């Protein structure tokens, strides 16, 4: 009995939806835009996070050591650093090695080579430190700047990349915030469009609704189909997002990977497919359902 009632309401809702298919299509399109933009926002966020982690992993601290500090002292410093829990690896580049590399790199630049020959070796020996985790660099630097090796150090090259990371994370924050704003605006517009479509459907079904009341249809027999209609808009919009987003990501993921190494966006999408789709579905269904509920409350006197 209950399932029969539900089935009939469902069928009536589907009929409302299908008989107005052009209007339904327009509503779905606007809802699709809202869901699509929210999904893109999520993906952008993932890419942004990828870039940030990639950058943070790339960061290492170069410690330039004063010319006068001896090899022994440097080795001691290196083993002390290795002893720190935060440190993953420390590599030593002596000033001679640095010079060889420098010369290799600038072979084609005679002016530079000449001045190097004249100056002798101006390059400082360096220790390159890699931390286990990007957030641990501050602790390492703190150790160097305030510890016993303070005097041996000429300069620590970290602050520059730090500001780059900060800029980037600021930027991705801004993208996220404007994305949320755009998504909200689109969601409101989509809600209004769905509301109006259902209002029109109610107008179209005026005589049906009147007869329903006349023959003693229960509240939900009259309201249910319109609610189903709204929910269908949301579900179809979520499905449309899925159908359009998947190939789009499939084609663009390699291109994004070229710009941002290690960002397999399609891979992320496939592994989070069900989560993402359920979120889209919930978002769409909630939006459509809420719009029809408002329309029902406002215009459908039972």
């Amino acid at each position, binding site marked *: 009995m209950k399932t029969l009632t539900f089935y009939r309401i469902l069928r009536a809702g589907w009929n409302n939806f299908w008989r107005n298919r052009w209007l339904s299509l327009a509503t779905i399109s606007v809802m699709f835009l809202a869901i699509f933009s929210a999904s893109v926002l999520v993906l952008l966020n993932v890419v942004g996070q990828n870039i940030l982690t990639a950058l943070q992993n790339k960061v290492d601290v170069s410690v330039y050591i004063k010319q006068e500090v001896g090899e022994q002292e440097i080795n001691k410093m290196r083993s002390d650093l290795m002893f720190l829990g935060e440190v993953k690896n420390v590599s030593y580049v002596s000033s001679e090695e640095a010079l060889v590399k420098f010369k290799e790199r600038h072979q084609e630049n005679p002016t530079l080579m000449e001045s190097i020959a004249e100056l002798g070796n101006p390059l400082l020996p360096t220790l390159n430190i890699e931390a286990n985790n990007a957030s641990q660099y501050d602790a390492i630097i703190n150790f160097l700047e305030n510890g016993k090796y303070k005097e041996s150090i000429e300069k620590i090259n970290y602050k520059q990349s730090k500001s780059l990371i900060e800029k980037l994370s600021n930027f991705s924050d801004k993208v996220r915030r404007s994305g949320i704003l755009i998504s909200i605006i689109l969601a409101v517009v989509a809600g209004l469009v769905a509301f109006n479509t259902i209002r029109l459907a109610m107008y179209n079904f005026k005589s049906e609704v009147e007869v329903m*009341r006349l*023959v003693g249809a*229960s509240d939900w027999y009259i309201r249910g189909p319109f609610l189903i209609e709204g929910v269908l808009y949301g579900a179809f919009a979520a499905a449309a997002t899925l159908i359009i987003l998947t190939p789009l990501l499939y084609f663009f993921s390699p291109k994004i990977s070229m710009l941002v190494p290690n960002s397999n966006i399609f891979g992320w999408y496939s592994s989070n497919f069900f989560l993402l789709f359920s979120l889209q579905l919930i978002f769409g269904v909630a939006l459509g359902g809420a719009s029809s509920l408002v329309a029902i409350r406002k215009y459908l006197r039972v």
Partner: protein
Amino acid sequence: MIEFKNVSKTYEINGGTCDALSDISFKIKAGEFVSIAGPSGSGKSTLLKLILGKEKPTSGQVFFKNEDVSLIPTKKMSKLRQLIGMVFQDFKLLPKRTVYENIAFAMEMVGKPNKEIEEDVPQVLDLVGLADKSASFPNQLSGGEKQRVSIARALIHRPEVILADEPTGNLDLLNTWDIVRLLLKINELGTTIILATHDREIINNLSKRVLTLNKGRLIRDEENGRYIL
């Protein structure tokens, strides 16, 4: 079964007021056939709407089976309307559904199972004499046939009362008598009938109880009544 106690109904129109019914009191017993006579605008439709709970009285009370209709919550309203079948001058059939579907629709709307629908609809169509028209659409029927479909639909819930609001208003003489005879037959089967009409011929030939309304007032209530203004 139905009782009006000092019922008045006032509509507000463009800031002014219009008295549709003033201080009406009467009782109708189960199984009666009552005609409500009166010219257009005398308050016949308003009276029927009050029984159906579509309108609430401005003052006074309307009782259906000892229950004050204006106090019935919206949720129970659908139950009330299943006990009252309604027939209109303009039939109110759904144009895109066949005769069969129009009646089945009424049963679907109250959650009747398919099996019961398949049994009951042919029966009721047989009763109103339209067994052979069940696959026709309303626009393929004559006015009289449409009204019989609408009566069949009103009967499908086995109501205790049928309210007929000018059911013959759009029909020619022959069809009019068909419908009236059908209503009499339904009444003989035990259903209370309340027939609102301004058709002098019908009322004078029925020799049943007549309530006569004029300008919202009940001016006459007689058994074997005639249409006299």
